[in-house]
């Protein structure tokens, strides 16, 4: 991986730093500086809790270059507690333990290495969430519940109109 490209995204890769829209409150990951809901400028950094749950997943048996030593491994869509859906590897888990809706938590791990002489690339993965001590295991949504962002009727109408066009 190109060093500069990796370095520019260290905040989001190591710490799940995204953005929050000052206009409609939507939490955005990865950061994109423009709110996908209300199309206003959104540059306020927001640190995600790292809690979420498995939305869907698939096992990779034929890995792309750079990931050979990890195969087979599981890639999941993780629904973060604050809303966004992110793609990431699951780690510290056997495939038969995984289910849709499984509570997970973010960890920082080695994503790949550029050969024996190249850079080590670190970033987020997710693993089964630690059960809460003294209580029955709770779902990730309960663990990291944040208030729903205020709904922006204009943006919603726009989104609905766009979906209607695309349909």
């Amino acid at each position: 991986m190109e060093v500069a490209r990796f370095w520019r995204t260290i905040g989001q890769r190591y710490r799940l730093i995204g953005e929050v829209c000052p206009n409609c409150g939507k939490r955005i990951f990865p950061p994109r500086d423009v709110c996908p809901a209300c199309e206003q400028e959104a540059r306020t950094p927001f640190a995600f809790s790292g809690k979420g749950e498995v939305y869907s997943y698939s096992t990779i048996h034929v890995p792309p270059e750079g990931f050979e030593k990890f195969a087979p491994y599981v890639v999941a869509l993780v629904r973060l507690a604050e809303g966004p859906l992110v793609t990431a590897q699951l780690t510290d888990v056997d495939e038969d333990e995984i289910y849709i809706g499984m509570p997970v938590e973010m960890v920082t791990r080695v994503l790949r290495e550029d050969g024996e002489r190249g850079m080590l690339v670190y970033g987020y993965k997710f693993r089964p969430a630690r059960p809460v001590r003294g209580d029955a295991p709770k779902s990730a949504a309960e663990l990291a519940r944040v208030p729903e962002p205020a709904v922006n009727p204009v943006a919603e109408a726009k989104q609905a109109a766009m979906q209607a066009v695309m349909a």
Partner: protein
Amino acid sequence: MKPSRPVGITGYGAYVPRYRLAGQAVSELWTDGNAQPPVREKAVPGLDEDVATMSIEAARNAIARASYADPAFSPAELGAVWVGSESHPYAVKPTSTIVAEAIGATPYTQAADWQFACKAGTEAIQAAIGFVGSGMAAYALAIGMDAAQGRPGDALEYTAGAGGAAFVIGPAERALVEIEGSVSYVTDTPDFWRRQYEKYPEHAGRFTGEPAYFHHIIASVTALLRQMNLSARDFAYAVFHQPNVKFPLKVGEELGFTREQLRPGLLVNDIGNTYAGSSVIGLTAILDIAQPGDRILLASFGSGAGSDAFCLRVRKTVAAKDVWTTQEYVQRRTPIDYAQYSRMKGNYKLN
């Protein structure tokens, strides 16, 4: 030694990877099962783990506890992020900047990697005491962490484990544990080393015992007890560097500590020797159960050689229900066989 203003541990956190290799598996492969394993099993890092990732998780746990103990604390106040290890992922490029970035301590902070075989972690703690105690920083983060190496078939392969601990050092009045005093004792004793560009360490066999491990720990602890005017009976718990089960029990006995004082911090039978993380992760297991007023003795040993001894007193405890305890990591175990272990160690060449 005492700093000019009192300091303590305001937060602590541990990490142990989930995989375990039984000592018996090593014995069966290399000795037909004839060798008696020195530990039951050891912790092995997964394919995506190294000292940087393990340090990040321990540091996050330490920061979480520090935030419970002192709600005003934030990682941006860390004046130093120091990682002690003998298995830093890069030969040149600091582990500590990776950790500092991942916990949000950058950019106005000191960052450095420490190296003193198995006492690199306590060396970082000593430096952090000085840094905070002199007023140069409000808080400093000291980590001892290793993914230890041992030559296949060597005595070290049975015990070379993975794990360690992180400590936020800060003002004593906000701390969970006050650091009442410390002693460092070092000599040039070549009992264990790894030369530049070599993959595995060498050791001087039995020479690692009496003139190295036992001499240095007994010297540092005896000097500390004299300095503090205390005896073994004044401590609720004690934890020593744990290269195997036998050595810490024997040095404890020679210094007058009972097995009951040592048991809560003795993790080596379950996770192996975690080198720079060995004595300090034992301390975290004790802190998980200690009560206010309890005195704890911590004494590391690093080959080459030296020992840092600390006299600690618990001031308060925090519930921190959402933070992993050390025993939770120890009990989260996935057994692996020798072939899987070899794969995780990178012993198979794929292309």
